[in-house]
């Protein structure tokens, strides 16, 4: 027997200087390691927070939208020109409703014989399809024909964006008043501002909003005097040359209030015209434009108009696809895992299969798309763009993941449970299904749900089997054309209009919520089934 202190010099105990030095080094290494760990976690948290903040920031404007609350006279001559009172015909008669809305707006806002350009600008306040809910509502409630109904009409995406502060930079000035007005609304108005100071402020705003680095860029100003909106053509000192845009067709009174709206870009350079802005401002002043929760994001299907586009079809499509995926991947995966882990003999063939399953998990997903297109669509002749095919492809994609996760869960079950079951005379199958599988269930469920979550986020293979098609209808079943959330996001992100941007972010949030829900289910199931052994 040798005592641990036998080799140390007689002068000291085992706490020698070298030992202390080494100890110090070890502590330092430990501190360093802890610091690296914290730094890594910090970076991860920062990345996550940045991602979430940017997505939610972008998406926030998509969750509310501005609508025009309009009291519409449902006139039979427009909506039911044949007088058949056939609800289906009425619902389909979108152009009739549209015409009715357009005419009633024109009556309110336009002069007797407006130019086509002005008409187009007015009709551009809302989208053609914004009347769809009106048509639907009228078809459902035939008695409303001939009465006045208040409807919320979705504003065009650009107007919506403008109201949310987009489209162009702007600045509002409250001017102190006017000293003199001359001219007429038809030929042009000359307005002299009340004070020199107002003119200076207006000029300063115009200069500050004009971007110096871009040619042809000059700020524009809209002037509201009393109930009338003008465009400022040019300004010389206090004297402004104005063109009538909208509002009361009379010259403002001498005591009318004057406000200026300075916009960073002239109307040639933006998607919303001066006149549309003027109308919007008037409607807003009248309190007929209000912000509502954008339920259409969840209830509508895809549309070419961002203000009408919603995720409903994609959500249902995703659900159907997931259903097919789950029905394929989970049972097949679990049974494959159980067989491989519990029953299969250990030989070259099974190890080959194991290696291949592990490799399959690493195959790029687009390869599965190619496979799906080749096998399910070309060979088996299944229709394109349907959740069935999408689900099958995704099912194959996540199958290796489910098998690997399930096998890991099965291996984690202590062998003593198996021998215990065998020891009381259970057959192999009984021991597996009565004891091993229930114990592995939480792990298998977690693995499966994580696999599902992966499938939910897959885009590439679905593009190849045509699920990128434009689908305006909520699919009825797995054999109906549909799209899925990630593909929808991909499509929206490529949309040209600015309004697609928040819409895309909103769709991403819907997808994230979906994923979080699935993970939540995974955690809850795990907690529920987890048992000590």
């Amino acid at each position, binding site marked *: 027997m040798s005592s641990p202190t036998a080799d140390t010099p007689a002068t000291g105990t085992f706490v020698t200087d070298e030992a202390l030095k080494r100890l110090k080094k070890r502590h330092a290494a430990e501190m360093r390691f802890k610091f690296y760990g914290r730094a890594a976690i910090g970076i991860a948290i920062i990345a996550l927070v940045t991602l979430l903040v940017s997505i939610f920031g972008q998406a926030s404007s998509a969750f509310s939208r501005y609508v025009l609350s309009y009291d519409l006279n449902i006139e039979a001559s427009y909506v039911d020109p044949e007088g058949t009172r056939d609800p289906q015909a009425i619902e389909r008669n979108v152009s009739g409703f549209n015409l009715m809305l357009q005419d009633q707006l024109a009556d309110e806002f336009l002069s007797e014989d407006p130019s086509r350009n002005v008409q187009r600008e007015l009709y551009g306040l809302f989208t053609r399809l914004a009347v769809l809910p009106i048509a639907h509502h009228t078809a459902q409630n035939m008695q409303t024909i001939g009465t006045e109904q208040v409807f919320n009409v979705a504003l065009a995406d650009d107007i919506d964006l403008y109201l949310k502060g987009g489209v162009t930079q702007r600045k509002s000035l409250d001017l102190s008043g006017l000293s003199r007005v001359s001219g007429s609304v038809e030929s042009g108005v000359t307005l002299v501002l009340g004070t020199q100071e107002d003119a200076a402020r207006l000029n300063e705003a115009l200069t500050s909003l004009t971007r110096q680095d871009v040619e042809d860029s000059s700020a524009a100003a809209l002037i509201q005097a009393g109930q009338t909106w003008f465009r400022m053509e040019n300004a010389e000192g206090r004297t402004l040359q104005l063109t009538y845009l909208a509002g009361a067709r009379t010259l403002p009174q001498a005591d009318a209030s004057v406000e200026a709206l300075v916009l960073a870009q002239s109307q040639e350079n933006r998607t919303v015209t001066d006149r549309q802005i003027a109308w919007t401002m008037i409607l807003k002043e009248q309190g007929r434009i209000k912000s509502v929760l954008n339920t259409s994001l969840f209830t509508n299907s895809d549309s070419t108009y961002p203000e009408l586009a919603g995720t409903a079809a994609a959500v249902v499509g995703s659900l159907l696809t997931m259903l097919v995926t789950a029905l394929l991947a989970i049972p097949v995966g679990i049974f494959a895992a159980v067989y491989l882990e519990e029953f299969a003999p250990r030989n070259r063939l099974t190890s080959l299969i194991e290696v291949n399953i592990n490799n399959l998990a690493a195959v790029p997903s687009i390869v599965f798309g190619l496979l799906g297109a080749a096998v399910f669509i070309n060979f088996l002749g299944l229709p394109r763009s349907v959740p069935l095919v999408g689900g099958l492809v995704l099912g194959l994609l996540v199958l290796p993941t489910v098998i690997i996760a399930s096998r890991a869960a099965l291996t984690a079950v202590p062998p003593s449970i198996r021998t215990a079951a065998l020891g009381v*005379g*259970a057959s192999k199958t009984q021991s597996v299904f009565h004891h091993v599988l229930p114990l592995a269930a939480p792990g298998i469920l977690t693995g499966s749900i994580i696999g599902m979550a992966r499938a939910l986020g897959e885009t590439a293979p679905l593009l190849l089997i045509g699920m990128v098609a434009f689908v305006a209808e909520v699919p009825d079943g797995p054999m109906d054309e549909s799209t899925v959330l990630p593909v929808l996001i991909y499509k929206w992100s490529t949309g040209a209009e600015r309004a697609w941007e928040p819409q895309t972010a909103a769709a991403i949030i819907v997808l994230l919520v979906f994923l979080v829900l699935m993970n939540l289910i995974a955690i809850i199931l795990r907690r529920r089934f987890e048992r000590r052994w």
Partner: protein
Amino acid sequence: MDGNVEDFAETTTTIDRTQSGSAPIKVDCRHIDVFYDDKQAIHDISLEIEDRSVTAFIGPSGCGKSTFLRCINRMNDTIEAAKVTGEIFMDGANINDPSIDPVLLRSRVGMVFQKPNPFPKSIYDNIGYGPRIHGLASGKAEMDEIVEKSLRKAGLWEEVKDRLQAPGTSLSGGQQQRLCIARAIAVSPEVILMDEPCSALDPIATAKIEELIDELRERYCIVMVTHSMQQAARVSQKTAFFHLGKLIEYGDTEKIFTNPEHGRTQDYITGRFG
């Protein structure tokens, strides 16, 4: 002083007579060889195990005693690489015969393992599982009876009767092992195999298990593997010493522990191995 030696001799012989009388043979193993792949783990072991007694297998680690034990309920069948040859007769029938289903055999030959391994289910279900899969109980009342009887035999009834629905894993180590014994008893086996049943238990729990084994001896043929020679000496009537896959010595426990015939046995039990 003179008489003491004589007295000692007399007691020895009387004990010998009671133990090595004509106890019926329950399990008769003949020429058993076990191979793991190409490695031979058991070399031609022949052994007769008496009914209603405790037979202990001792020997250093890796000597094949557990492997041999597992031959008796064909647990080695579950290990792919293992191959068993030879004949094991239980009440005259060769259990290694292909016509005997190991599942049925295991209902006659119960097994208790080294580490208490109750199912992660309730105490009731732990006991009831065996009878249920073998169809031993036709109703709830009958099952209740089996559960109570098994727990009573295992000396656990008084401790758990108020919490039969509590998970089996919530019991202490010793109680868990007794639960496992009760579970083995529940299918009314004839032979109970125990593979180091006390190695994971504290001395008090061990003593309780040993006392239980001693009681069970009246009804069952018990074969146990143990690493503790003291335990073998305390509870068994017959002891078999294994070394390197061979049966070195088999005989009355008393003889093995006072005067073994074989030098290897002597060295092992006196702690001189090496």
